């Protein structure tokens, strides 16, 4: 699997005329850029801008490239950028397998098989028919990551994905996520205020203030 770079070119974001942040960077496949800073500084708005759903209160400029492709004019669903939130956000009305199936693009062959393999890969074989509400926190986090991967993103955004996990789980899941993303050669932006997250990602860090 050979990845592409994620490039943020002169990205400025401001809220009601007040400048929040500016970023100019390039993230290699499999590398992680960590954005740190206190809350309210606009970390999440950077992710929203890259993903394609920045609220209309904000104004932003700057171009986003995946490889050679400029994403600015594309709607969120066509950008090929995956996102992990603080919560796993498994769709409560769908079973575990349906959650995964929802993410598999239509053109992919053997979609059900892909789902089964994805579950097996994280040790959740046979959990497909379960109600997501019955999974443990760690299981949910793993399903959420598998769902993200099944959607075949070209880059990934992480919005404090480990902050809601119990301390004993956090270490494991963190390792698992970063390892997986590296293996998949996906450029990643991590937003966090946990220095351990930054350290575990092993990439460069931007400190906002």
């Amino acid at each position, binding site marked *: 699997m050979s990845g592409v770079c994620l490039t943020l070119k002169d990205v400025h974001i401001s809220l009601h005329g007040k400048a929040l942040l500016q970023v100019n960077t390039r993230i290699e496949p499999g590398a992680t850029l960590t954005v740190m800073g206190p809350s309210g500084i606009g970390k999440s708005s950077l992710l929203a801008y890259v993903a394609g*759903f920045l609220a*209309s209160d904000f104004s932003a400029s700057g171009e986003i490239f995946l490889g050679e492709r400029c994403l600015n004019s594309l*709607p*969120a*669903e066509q950008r090929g*950028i995956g996102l992990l*939130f603080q919560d796993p956000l498994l769709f409560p009305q769908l079973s575990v397998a349906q959650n995964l199936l929802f993410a598999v693009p239509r053109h992919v062959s053997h979609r059900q098989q892909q789902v089964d393999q994805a579950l097996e890969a994280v040790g959740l074989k046979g959990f497909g028919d379960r109600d997501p*509400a019955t999974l443990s926190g760690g299981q949910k986090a793993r399903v959420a990551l598998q769902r993200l991967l099944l959607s075949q993103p070209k880059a990934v955004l992480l919005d404090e994905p480990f902050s809601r996990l119990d301390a004993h789980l956090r270490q494991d899941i963190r390792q698992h996520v970063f390892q997986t993303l590296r293996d998949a050669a996906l450029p990643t932006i991590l937003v966090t205020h946990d220095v351990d997250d930054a350290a575990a990602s092993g990439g460069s860090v931007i400190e906002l203030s």
Partner: protein
Amino acid sequence: MLRAAPWLMIALLTLPVLAGLSAILLPAFGYLPALQHNGFGLMVWRELLETPGIGRSAGLSLSAALLTPLLSLMLVMLFLASTSGTRWASAMRRLVAPLLAVPHAAAAFGLAFLIAPSGFLLRLISPELSGWQRPPDLLILNDPLGLTMMLGLVLKEIPFLLLMALAALPQLNADQRVNMARSLGYRPILAWLWTVAPALYPLLRLPLFAVIAFASATVDVALILGPTLPPTLSVRIIGWFSDPDLNQRLLASAAALLQLMITLSAIGVWIAAEKIVARLYRALLLSGHRRHGHALLNVLGKSLMVITLGTLLISLLLLVIHAFAGPWRFPDNLPAAWTLQHWQSVGPLLLAPLGNTLLLGLVSTAVAVLLVVAVLEHESRQGRKPAQILWAIYIPLLVPQVAFLYGLTLLLEQLRWQPGLLMVGFAHSLFVVPYVYLSLAEPYRRLDPRWQQLAATLGASPNRTWWHIKLPLLLAPLATAFAVGVAVSIGQYLATLLTGAGRVSTLTTEAVALASGGTRGTIAVWALLQAAVPMLGFAMAIMLPRLWWRKRRDMTGQLT
């Protein structure tokens, strides 16, 4: 397509009202060429003002417009204050939703069965306590001051305001405010009244204005419980409109305009009173009362609400009893025998009105839900705040029905549009859409935007996201909104009567038509059916999402 939805909705709801109002404007000043009235002047107004008892009729409408919301608001606030943070609130919420579904007419009939001189209350104390072997000659129903009518209105408006308040409260952090004030030494009820009530009131203003407009111009409740010598202005307008002497239509037009002015001035008086009350309230709040009257308020708040809702429940129960009652002479507490006779006699007449009621309710609500969802989905995709212009959709609730519906009917007649289901359905949607919007907008806007964003990052288009993610997540509030819409449609009396030219019969028109003519048994059957259909709708709205999602734990906790 979606982009047009907000404008379509606003046009649908405001243009008919404006058209209806403008259709009465010229006739009110003597200009109605179809009847060879080409003059222009104040003759009609002079005639209106010289009509015997017109001042009395107008006064009744104005006093009902002010007293009904005032009493309802005070009761609701007192109740909420005295039960804040207790289990009462959630219990009430569960009780109130189905009560809200009961149409005004059905509640009015039940109340009449309860408090008439030959009604259930006096039967209970007769002859043992009162010594009455025959009903006392008391003027209770149709009393000249309209007190019974206002009581009927208050009974129905309290569940409405209570539900609106309970829906608004979560955004106010009531418990936090109360605890803060309690830590300053205020007793809980006063703490609530001083810190939560002033924040809650602005959220209840619009519903209160709707109550004012409804109470000032009600026709069905006035026909059942209201004064007769003279009746309220709205009832007289309907009378003049259907007078064989078509010249009375000039009078009806002027009176409809007068009705509009009464409603608007009632709202004006209310707004003026708000300012005064706010100042007094502030003074009282700052006076530092911490305990004074706490016990009294506590007892009043709970007992008055129990009495009100109890009255409503007993009224409904009386509908059930009367629907199966055989001979039931005064002062017997219960019927001497039970019978299915009333159902048998209503049975053959039931099919058409029931069919019309369901068809109108389902179709007008389906259209309303589609429209409202389109508006809200458009708003959600644009990522914008709700547009200011959307307040316009409440216009049909704030303009007295009798004023613009009457004009609209005149207009439709001039256009030679055949009265029928289509016209009635259209008229119903004028009232169904605002209520569907009222009940759906909040849950729709509150839905976590991350679901939509997440689906997008997984590559799902907005349409796919809507069908697979948002629709299922919003199933419960959608079902509730649907039930609200159907209930609103079923309750429509005037809209059905006027735009259907009497040809479109529904459970409501049948029940009200029998108000003075039917036996108690048949009235009870119609009123019961009228109440049962919307209640069934609410039951289904609560049960179906739970059944549907019984295997999904996180989907069943939503109580809407």
